[in-house]
């Protein structure tokens, strides 16, 4: 009976087990972190500090961080390795090049030549100095192809523009002109908050206004805001509030635009919601791809705190490159300093949310409408829908083969074709409308002849899709729906958190089947079944929509080699 030998690479007897660190390592990291609280929920912020200052995170730094935070090395490593924006360098591994160019490869950017741009860049740069990364959507789809270097954004990026910038200092975001605190106050801002604080607007009335206005969650789920407030208020405090600014759904950029133009609309809305629902603290989670919005918010929150208004304390938390953190419970895990794994429901976060407390979570745009609704009344808001049954204005992120891509403020329920014709200047020159994503990567893909339907919650569900975050991507006769579907599946494969097997393995198998051009519909249908029925969260449940529609609406392309 010969069994596996027990001889092994003997560990060094002159040291205890595991990675050892020195007093110096501890001092170095401690100095970098300065006065940051050594709390588990700050681990991701601490990792950002190290990544920002050193360009990578060494295994030793992880060990030192773990000791300072009284965590195990594995506890820090598993978090660091979950987020794509942390470059972990273990002993003996190469340190990444000092400059990193992230080129967005979402469908809109791919249509605009992102992959060609990547190839050209790789050919043009010195790999020791510049690293090119094909990145998931960075929320600049109306400026495709788009890229990032450090905290700078490059729209309509070219090899020349990126190379020219790669020598510069990109560590500070460039701030655009936006409505700052004085400007917002001058336009009548924070008067509604003052009324709420004075008791002039009572909490119950505010909740009723949200319901009467028909304000729905604009992060994608469309849950009625008034009802949500009612739920969270009903649970015993202390309660918390989170603002979901992890706008990662490919094709979506409306929240970024809102934050970069009028950040105080969101801040006032959040303050009102927190007051009405009785939340003691507001955590604003902003994706790492939005350095500009983050810098603006930091400035404006400081300004707001300095004002005479009685403010609910606010904290910004920085994402680190993980689409899944747009799922509200995954975001909450991330704010707690953990991997962004969606939680099982029930319990819902309204009952057991951030740090185990009842939590009110809202999308950026959703709260931004709150002051307007309270100021002008719910009917004013509801009346702005396209027809009866569709309430309010909506921000559509429109990109792809249209003449004027961008954020379009249009009535809820507008038929897509009218959105294209009346708000986007029609199709781009030489392009014929062929297909569209109504709601980013997960909402499915439909043929042009279905563009006469209402762009609102409730329409696309009947067709096995959804409008989600209202991210519309338009394809033309030049484009392959199959390629778009594969792009989307690769995105989900890349972004699956890996927690549950149907999504983790299903997205991987779907990509492999498409890549191998397997034609057996039964295989795809089986994957759709198990992903749709058995995944923990919406990512896995919806990830296959585009493939489902490829087979249903574009059979020729599905069969095409």
């Amino acid at each position: 009976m010969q069994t596996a030998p027990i001889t092994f690479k003997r560990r060094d007897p002159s040291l205890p087990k595991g990675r050892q660190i020195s007093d110096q390592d501890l001092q170095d990291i401690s100095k970098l972190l300065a006065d940051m609280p050594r709390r588990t929920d700050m681990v991701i912020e601490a990792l950002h500090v190290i990544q920002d200052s050193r360009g990578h995170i060494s295994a030793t730094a992880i060990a030192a961080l773990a000791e300072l935070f009284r965590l195990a090395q594995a506890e820090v490593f598993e978090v660091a390795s979950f987020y794509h924006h942390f470059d972990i360098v273990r002993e003996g591994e190469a340190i990444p090049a000092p400059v990193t160019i992230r080129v967005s490869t979402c469908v809109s950017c791919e249509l605009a030549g992102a992959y060609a741009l990547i190839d050209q860049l790789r050919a043009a740069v010195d790999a020791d100095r510049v690293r090119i990364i094909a990145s998931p959507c960075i929320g600049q789809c109306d400026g495709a192809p788009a890229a990032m270097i450090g905290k700078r954004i490059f729209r309509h990026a070219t090899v020349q523009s990126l190379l020219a910038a790669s020598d510069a200092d990109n560590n500070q975001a460039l701030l655009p002109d936006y409505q700052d605190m004085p400007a917002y106050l001058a336009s009548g801002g924070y008067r509604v908050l003052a009324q709420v604080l004075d008791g002039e607007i009572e909490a119950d009335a505010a909740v009723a206004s949200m319901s009467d206005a028909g304000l729905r969650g604009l992060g994608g789920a469309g849950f009625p805001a008034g009802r949500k407030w009612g739920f969270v208020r009903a649970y015993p405090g202390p309660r918390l509030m989170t603002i979901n600014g992890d706008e990662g759904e490919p094709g979506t950029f409306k929240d970024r635009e809102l934050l970069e133009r009028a950040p105080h609309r969101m801040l006032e809305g959040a303050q009102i919601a927190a007051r009405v629902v009785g939340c003691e603290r507001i955590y604003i989670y902003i994706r790492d791809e939005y350095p500009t919005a983050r810098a603006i918010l930091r400035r404006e929150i400081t300004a707001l705190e300095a004002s005479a208004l009685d403010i609910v304390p606010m904290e910004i938390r920085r994402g680190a490159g993980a689409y899944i953190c747009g799922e509200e419970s995954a975001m909450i895990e991330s704010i707690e300093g953990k991997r962004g794994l969606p939680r099982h429901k029930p319990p819902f976060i309204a009952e057991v949310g951030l740090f185990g407390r009842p939590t009110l979570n809202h999308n950026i745009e959703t709260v931004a409408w709150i002051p307007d609704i309270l100021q002008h009344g719910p009917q004013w808001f509801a009346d702005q829908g396209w027809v009866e049954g569709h309430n309010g204005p909506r921000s559509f992120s429109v990109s792809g083969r249209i003449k004027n891509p961008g954020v379009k403020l249009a009535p809820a329920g507008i038929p897509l074709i009218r959105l294209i014709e009346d708000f986007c200047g029609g199709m781009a020159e030489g392009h014929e409308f062929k297909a569209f994503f109504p709601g980013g990567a997960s909402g499915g893909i439909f043929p042009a002849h279905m563009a006469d339907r209402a762009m609102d919650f409730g329409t696309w569900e009947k067709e096995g899709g959804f409008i989600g975050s209202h991210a519309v991507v338009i394809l033309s006769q030049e484009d392959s729906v199959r390629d778009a579907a594969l792009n989307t599946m690769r995105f989900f494969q890349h972004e699956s958190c890996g927690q549950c097997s149907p999504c983790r393995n299903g997205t991987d198998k779907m990509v492999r089947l498409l890549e191998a051009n397997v034609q057996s519909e039964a295989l795809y249908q089986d994957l759709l079944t198990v992903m749709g029925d058995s995944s923990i969260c919406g990512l896995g449940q919806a990830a296959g929509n585009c493939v489902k529609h490829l087979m249903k609406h574009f059979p020729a392309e599905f069969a095409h080699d």
Partner: protein
Amino acid sequence: MTDLAADLSGIKFTLDGEQVQAFAGETIWQVAKRQGTLIPHLCWRDAPGYRADGNCRVCMVEIEGERVLAASCIRTPSEGMVVNTANARVQKNRELVFELLACDMPARETSPNPQSHFWLQYDLLGQQEQPRFPSGRPGAGKQIPVDSAFHDASHPSIAVNLDDCIACGLCERACREVQVNDVIGMASRGMGAGPVFDVKDPMGLSSCVACGECVQACPTGALTEKTLLDVTATRREVYADAVKPSICPFCGVGCQTEVSLKGNHILKVDGRQGPANRGKLCVKGRFGMDYVMSPERLTTPLIRRNDAPKSRDANMQFADISSVFREASWEEAIAFAAGGMNTVRDTFGGQALAGFGSAKGTNEEAYLFQKYIRQGFKTNNVDHCTRLCHASSVAALMEGVGSGAVSAPFTAADDSDCILIIGCRPEQNHPVAATYLKQAAKRGAKLMVFDPRKQEMMRHASHSVIFNPGRDVPMINAMIHTIIEEEIYDLQYVQSNTVGFEALAEKVRDFSPEAMAEICGVEAQYLRELARTFAQSERAIIFWGMGVSQHVHGTDNVRTLIALSLITGHIGRPGTGIHPLRGQNNVQGSSDAGLIPMVYPNYKPVEDPAVRKRYEEAWDCSLDPHNGLTVVEIMHAMEAGEIRALYVQGENPAMSDPDQNHARKALASLDHLVVQDIFLTETAWFADVILPASAQPEKPGTYTNSNRQIQLGMPVRKPPGSARQDWHILMDMAKASGLDWGYTEIGQVYTEMASFMPCFDNISWERLMRETVVCYPATTVDGPGEEILFYDGFPTADGRAKLVPTDLVPPHELPDDDFPMVLTTGRLLEHWHTGAMTRRATHLNAQESVPVVSMHPRDIGEQGFSRGQQVTVETRRGAISLTLRADRDVTPGMLFIPFCFVEAPANFLTSPQLDPFGKIPEFKFSAARIKKANAETTI
């Protein structure tokens, strides 16, 4: 049935068409199991301590009205819910999840474990086709290539084959939540998601402590014992032909085990659901059992050759045994062994004899051993190594609360709000007990860790106190001072349950935190905070180990802890108590059974005429009316020529006793030394006759763990060669010494012993055979034993506990210019006691194979050493050479040496100075110096 119905929460729902009810908190999976439906499951482990995670999605069920399926392992039913566990939709999803997982896994027949939980669950779905989906893993669908990036054979005991991993995270929960070792994390994302060790390190180089909980939990073959795999460590090679229940032979925790055997060969060990371990094991229990199969096992009796004189410098590490000993028949060996004892008795009298029993043997062996010495030689010179561990604890406990055992089990930490541990490193020495303390800390209980060295437990602690070595008394007295001064003691408890409070209060008046701060190296304000936190907790419990007991003021140390517990009323309730963590598997039992020179079984004084009379009548002989000598006193008496014969059963004084130069000289000077053991121990080097005995898994009997739980162990394998069970050897020795015992079954020994021990009332041999574990004392013949003692009063004459004031006694030997460092000794996780077993356990020795002295890296740098070099550590008693280890846990100014290495026995350095009450030596404090090793330095 009515009882069950009363416990139901009243949630009624429909399960597969039947109306059922759920207990509060019960999941759908658990209700289904109760109803007889076992829903397939992978990431859910149906065992205590494991949290459902709901990630594998195999146990999905359909809940009417819900859009998607739900994981039954994590979902609790609600009123009126309609659940289908096996309709077509559910079945389809379940099959697809299995298929999705299987298509990335190696082919079953060549996988690390074709009989894994995964495959057995998959079998339940019926015949399956080959998985249809493409995979990107190197091992998918075939045998795992050894160069697979997912293959890691770096650990001596565990093979990692992540090609077979389904990322269910059970290993992470095992490591983080069940054992709280925090080595495994679930890293990365998507298909890359999976377990890592530390920072994705090779397992063998990580901080893994090899408790093996992950292996036991893994539902596939991704983590497998190497002993089951082929030479590539990727494919299952070996299968057991029997699985038998057993008990771990190492520390005092008393883990129940399940031993897999192929013939007489132990293949692997799993944790069994015992009250002390709840399925858990540590590295020693799981991977340390191959010592019993060591080629070094003694298989035949040996008698010293006439031409092989004894020498204090004997060293048989690499010697040819046959040049010193010759083989003998059992008849000759017993006649020689007992004859030698008889001759000394007949020539010099019984006081010239002594016996060292063992804390590793069974209760029955301990009872028989002390009976043999007392009855056969009319002497009370019988002791064992508890003298070297917790004699001071027992002395203080007997004096203070009238009982030498723990007042509460370590599992009482479950109910505790504040856990104080001092002078112990349970993660190394009682790893499974440590899990309960760490879990309590994670749940939010205060954890106070007092240790002169840093330790990993401090990461979980609310209060970490690194204090000056040997300064326990001033530190605890300063806390008592604070509690009395600030009047936060439990006045009512003190008044109704204790005596001596005024004297204590008077004594500690001089011990203000402000006055003691510098002496003990802890700030006064912090001492006050510690005192307040402990006193004001609802339920607080104290654990201690050898760091408290092994001092010249060891008994005083324990007295202060008892006083702290008593004045705060933190005793006699759930979650409170005092618990000396016992070092050996049966140290509690062998003390209970009377392996102590001052007492008969159940701590009855030998100098009490009434007690003695009872034994004289029962044993039909006259007995020694005076206390016998203790271990270290016996060694001195041997050196002085007063003791001429010694019978050692399963102990190793040549390694464990302090000041080895003298101890070994004493052993070498004996006229007659009988050693009964399973190995040629260092003590056996000095023997006249060696009797080959049985290892723990080879013999029947009972063991009493640290929690007072009596556990039955039955043999699972045969001893090698002509080695015999110890109680048979003892009976033959007794017979040859003229005693007529006549036991035919081990149970008769237990019954006779229990007849002298009221604490064993209601615990008959038949009951032990039936229940296999009972906690003593038990008040009824079928009810559970009392885990928490002193609910109402103490087993003392007046029913009250005694508060004993203590003085400031410094360590015996303070550092000075010649010997500027403080040397402390102890154990390593992998090595148990003197290493007789664990150094011969190949997996354990693979991890810690080199004698080391640990020193803080700052000291190493400042004193011009470099780690890894050979150094000599010297005290006034001797010098040894070993490898220098840099360890930030060791406080600057200190040295730590484990005493398990025969190549560099730490006890050549330690001091034989004794605590006056417990007669325990000061192992934990010696003045020492360190220098570069000379080539000629030898022991």
